[in-house]
């Protein structure tokens, strides 16, 4: 745990720390790509938890992550289609994906309560990092009103997820 967590947090902070500030911030196609990538990462992590965890509360949380993040991403896909915007890959998305792959591999080596604790701790950190990026950079940088609105709803949702993860984390100690 002590070895894994700092690496996970560092990966997330590094990835989203690379997002430019609002003044010269990412473009809408880049923002859409980053948001979609972050959602996909959390869905994949939740599916890993559903495959490995036997803890009912952890499984319930993971199911909620799949359901909610898939719903946001479906909406995001429909929106980019409506706006005729092609999401644009970028260094932030790539760093997020790389960090998630490393996290996935580390979690794959854990089982039982060690896995549960590591998965939930990563969920707390991942949502915290993504929420900070949404609030400070992605939402202020978004130009299209519909994209901005979707990101704002996403931020409200992800804050709920962060609180849920924090409560869950407290019960696992």
């Amino acid at each position, binding site marked *: 745990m002590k070895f894994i967590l700092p690496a996970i947090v560092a990966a997330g902070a590094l990835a989203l720390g690379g997002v430019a500030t609002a003044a010269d911030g990412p473009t809408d196609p880049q923002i859409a790509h980053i948001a979609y990538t972050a959602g996909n990462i959390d869905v994949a992590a939740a599916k890993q938890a559903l495959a490995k965890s036997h803890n009912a509360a952890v499984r319930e949380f993971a199911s909620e992550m799949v359901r909610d993040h898939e*719903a946001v991403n479906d909406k995001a896909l429909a929106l980019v289609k409506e706006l005729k915007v092609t999401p644009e890959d970028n260094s932030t998305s790539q760093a997020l994906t790389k960090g998630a792959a490393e996290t996935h591999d580390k979690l794959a080596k854990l089982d039982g309560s060690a896995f549960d604790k590591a998965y939930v701790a990563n969920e707390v950190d991942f949502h915290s990092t993504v929420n900070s990026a949404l609030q400070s950079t992605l939402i202020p940088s978004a130009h299209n009103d519909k994209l901005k609105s979707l990101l704002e*709803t996403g931020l409200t949702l992800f804050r709920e997820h962060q609180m849920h993860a924090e409560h869950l984390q407290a019960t696992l100690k």
Partner: protein
Amino acid sequence: MRRRMPVFAAAAWALLLTSAPAAAAPRSFTIVIDKMKFGALPAGVHAGDTIVWDNRDMFRHSATAKGAFDIDLPAGKVVKVRMKRDDTFAFVCKYHPGMKGVLKVSK
């Protein structure tokens, strides 16, 4: 006696019809859920009225009042629930507890 009966009966019916309170017909009130929020909550809800929970959000929610009701609200669905009793119901979405409201139902 026989001649008086109709008079009595008519008087009794007249009394009944004028003094009996007219029972208010049950009404429907809509609560819209969108963008992770419960919309404006209706006032003047009485027991027997129906709440139309209109979930326009992309997420599954619930309206859950401990010990009273637990209504599943699938994304994009409308769920109608009759309020059977009066009380002040503090409810949340059990999936997203930051979403909350208080529904007052009178007799």
